């Protein structure tokens, strides 16, 4: 009987059916129990070290590429890139100015609010979402409406609505340019004064010109100012 101890239940049942050595039902159950306990006792370990290596590399790559590129802007209802066939990659460091449908953002913080009205009412995110679909659905009613994006007159120079200078933007740019010039001097580099405008596709020409004009007024005498401008676009087509 001792030889039957390590038999599997199937083998034990087979032997019993063949009329071989007499194996009782209790013995079969015993064999089943022993097999189960053996299965649970075996410590199954999964080697995840190599997977960890891949994950760590991927994680670092994603973190670095999402934090170092100032043009890495996530598109939202209020910020959609204009499409263009331009194929120039940004080379020099620049000061990015983001002009969304809600704010003008400098150095990751909103500096000025952009007021938006459609049919004399304030624009909502739903309006923006419908407006964003105009490229694929140009016959939508929303595409025929006139959206007005402007800067409030209290944020303009001398509170003049016709002024091209946006005061809070000028002050913030001034601070940033002085800081950049000091950094470049410390590093022995020449300040290039490049500005990258990351503008939403619906921003009107007037507002773009106000931002460009304001930036053009910023600078330190004898050390240069902001003189080179470029627009960030989403590459498409040819």
């Amino acid at each position, binding site marked *: 009987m001792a030889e039957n101890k390590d038999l599997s239940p199937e083998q034990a049942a087979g032997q019993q059916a063949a009329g071989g050595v007499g194996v009782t039902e209790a013995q079969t159950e015993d064999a089943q129990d022993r097999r189960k306990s053996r299965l649970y006792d075996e410590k199954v*370990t999964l080697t*995840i*070290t190599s*997977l*960890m290596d891949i*994950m*760590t590399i*991927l*994680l670092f790559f*994603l*973190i670095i*590429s*999402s934090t170092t*590129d100032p*043009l*890495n*802007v*996530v598109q939202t209802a209020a910020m959609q*890139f*204009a*499409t*263009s*066939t*331009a*194929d*120039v*990659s*940004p080379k020099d460091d620049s000061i990015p100015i983001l002009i969304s449908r809600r704010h003008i953002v400098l150095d990751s913080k909103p500096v000025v609010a952009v007021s938006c009205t459609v049919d004399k009412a304030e624009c909502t995110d739903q309006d923006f979402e419908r407006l964003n679909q105009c490229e*694929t*659905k*140009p*016959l939508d009613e929303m595409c025929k409406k*006139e959206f*007005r994006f402007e800067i409030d007159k209290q944020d303009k120079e001398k509170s003049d609505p016709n002024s091209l200078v946006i005061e809070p933007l000028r002050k913030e740019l001034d601070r940033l340019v002085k800081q950049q010039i000091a950094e470049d001097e410390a590093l022995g580099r020449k300040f290039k004064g490049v500005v*990258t405008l990351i*503008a*939403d*596709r*619906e*921003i*009107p*020409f*007037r507002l*773009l*010109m106000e931002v*460009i*004009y304001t930036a*053009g007024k910023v600078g330190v005498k004898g050390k240069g100012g902001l*003189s*080179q*401008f*470029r*627009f*960030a*676009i*989403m*590459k498409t*087509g*040819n």
Partner: protein
Amino acid sequence: MASPSKRGHGGEADLGDPDLVPIMSIMCILIPMLIYSFVLYEVKVQEISLPKFGGPSNSSSKSKVLNLAILVAKDQHIIKIQGGDKEAKEITVKKKKFKVCSAETPCEECAGEEYEDYDFPGLYAEVAKLKDSKAFAEVDSINIGADDTVPWRVMARTIDSVRARLDKPNYPDLCTYSRAKALKVKTTDADGKEVTTAAEMFPKIVFVML
């Protein structure tokens, strides 16, 4: 009673493999989160020159340099040719009706409803014609201005129409124009190597205020 130290007596205790499962769990959350926020489209730049306030010189002035300007109005593009020894000339390219066409549909099979849009193929054809003329063969800059309300997306497409040379001189509709390939030309780079680049008409864009 304190347990006897496992170290000491010369040998180091086998601490086993570190438990990496919690770190893996954090990574499994972090990676999809970063991938979700990752920019998967290509962002490029379009360089422009500083605006010249006051706009292009008026038609009465006789500048020796030939000056080409595009003005984007609410319902049309206006091409202004000034300077040189010729009389000032204006060409208007009015908005036109185009058929709605999805990206998957071939242009010949477009049967969508009609909508009005700027005639970018028409603008491209006019500018290409001017560039091919003797007068503008050496000119590489163009002034672009617009009405206050013209959105940036229209300006960006206008810049495309005047900057890049496409494989054909004109296109019948917006669909074929939008899908046209850029004309490639062989040039030599700074190191003297032969390179293939996209041909350009007016690469220097100057923004002007009206």
